[in-house]
């Protein structure tokens, strides 16, 4: 191989574990085959990677294991298109290409000492998971942590084991909800933005980080503004169709911003400055 860094050339990794999260979401734990590269791999919470299946193509996913736990890199994949369907066919031990880390990250340094409010829907918990685990691993640096998470049905909730752990922790305020009544479900029922309004967290010294389907984001942003959160207290992540992941191929722009490189993490203040093209 040449010595010039080739940003298009993936590292080969091995899928060491596959977890069925929901009927259409699987998590893949990946270790780079080159032990030196795995040992030296660094990234920041919120950064993404391109997973490659050679012969099929690449697709972008957030690294949802935190940089504080580097035994493997975890990616969660919802079955939707060609690449994600092929990823769902993988077995433990299979080889996969990884181009990572790409993009920007959550401004966690500015969140130290603040109350943190996570609001997630469905697979939108993936990027939040990275930051939640990262913060829990350095718990003393942050104030109260509240997590509001919802999905269509209880079966559609991701990371079920961790949700249970977080519910049991006294230093996390965990609020789970599903869209409709469901046999055996004894927690909240209602859409995430409505539950957010019921819980009504104070904006005082708080940062809200939200990720989920576009419609949930839309109403969550409205709810946050009703709760008097200011735009620069709200952080979200964007998704766009991507190819190169390094700001060159031109595919993922919103005005002057390339989501792959300047994002995926944006504050609402930044988003409001961009042309409305989501």
């Amino acid at each position: 191989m040449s010595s010039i860094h080739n940003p298009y050339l993936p590292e080969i990794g091995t899928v060491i574990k596959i977890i069925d999260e929901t009927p259409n979401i699987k998590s893949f734990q990946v270790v780079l085959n080159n032990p030196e590269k795995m040992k030296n791999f660094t990234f920041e919470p919120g950064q993404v990677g391109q997973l490659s299946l050679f012969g099929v193509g690449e697709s972008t996913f957030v690294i949802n294991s935190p940089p504080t736990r580097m035994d493997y890199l975890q990616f969660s994949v919802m079955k939707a298109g060609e690449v994600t369907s092929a990823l769902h066919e993988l077995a433990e031990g299979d080889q996969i290409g990884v181009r990572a880390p790409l993009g920007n990250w959550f401004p966690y340094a500015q969140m130290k000492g603040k109350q943190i409010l996570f609001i997630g829907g469905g697979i939108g918990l993936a990027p939040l998971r990275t930051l939640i685990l990262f913060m829990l691993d350095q718990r003393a640096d942050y104030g109260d942590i509240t997590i509001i998470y919802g999905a269509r049905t209880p079966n559609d909730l991701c990371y079920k084991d961790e949700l249970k752990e977080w519910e049991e922790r006294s230093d996390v305020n965990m609020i789970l909800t599903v869209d409709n009544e469901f046999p055996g479900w004894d927690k909240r029922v209602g859409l995430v933005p409505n539950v957010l309004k019921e819980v009504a967290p104070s904006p005082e010294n708080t940062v809200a980080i939200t990720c989920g389907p576009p419609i949930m984001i839309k109403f969550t942003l409205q709810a946050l503004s009703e709760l008097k959160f200011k735009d620069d207290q709200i952080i979200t992540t964007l998704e766009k169709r991507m190819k190169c992941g390094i700001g060159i191929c031109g595919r993922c722009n919103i005005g002057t911003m390339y989501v792959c490189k300047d994002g995926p993490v944006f504050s609402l203040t930044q988003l409001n400055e961009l042309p409305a093209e989501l």
Partner: protein
Amino acid sequence: MADTGFLPKENLPALLEALSKKFAVFAPVLDGEVVLFKRFAPGATLCLTRPANLPPKGIIFPQSETLFNFNFKKDPEDPKKTSLELKENLDFVPTIIFGSRPCDAQGFRIYDRVYLETDTADPYYKGRREKTTIITLACNAPSPGCFCTSVGRGPAESDGSDLMMTELGKGYFFEPMTEKGKEIFKDSLFEDGSAYKEQAQKAHERVSALVKKPFAILEGTPEKLLSLFENSQFWEGETAKCISCGACTYLCPTCYCFNITDEQVGNSGERIRSWDACMFFHFTLEASSHNPRQNKHQRLKNRVGHKFSYYPKKYQGVIACCGCGRCIRYCPMSVDISEIVAHAQGA
């Protein structure tokens, strides 16, 4: 050695033949009714009287190229196991683009900011770009649709070129702009050019004055276009004729977008990148079937916006349009980007 040169027209084939010994030389030749950059071979009919139909961008940024090969190998010890091997090819040959036009060479400068002047430089572009010398012919008349002077450039602009040439009567006046250009210029076929310098200068000024100016100044245009972003009525009007064929972007010396796809036969295959364009519906189509640029007016708005608003805002006011006029000359529906910009300025 003189710092400018002169080459009688009859010596041009000899120069190209001499250069062909050391470089892969690409020059504009007539192919049926169109002028295309092709590998120069002795006896080829050069066509230097009008700009090539396709700019030479494909010589540095091929329409389709292999990023790497992949190969699945069965483990002879354990046939259930396969290993995976990736192989990239970053070897490029010394190349000359001969007879580029100033706008065509400018196109590579637009690329450079995106492909080279970043922390993740593109090794394929970089490899070819560094090994390529660009010899540019100043235009001696504008073609229909040309508007280079309106976008801060001109028919004798030398930025992006290594060696400039100007047609003067019986021969060509040459002026090297870079070290690479000086290398070429060392060839013994060149005569001293100092006597022609003033004449060349006059020719440049004469042609420059002939180029049409659809808009006088561009100041404020990036902001103006942004302020029109949500005015769909304006964009729908401007786009009414467009059929989203993408020809304008393929013919554009500055359009640099690409797609990445895999092709596999048996146990091996390649990852390929190919030109792509924001004029296509699929460009931004997401797996969820959501498409932020569902309608053709949103796509044309991105093309105009990228060239005249987003790129200049990102790169110190440089407009990502070199004014070559190809999209205007060859659009099957006669959509004219210079008119759209002028309308936007007046809207």
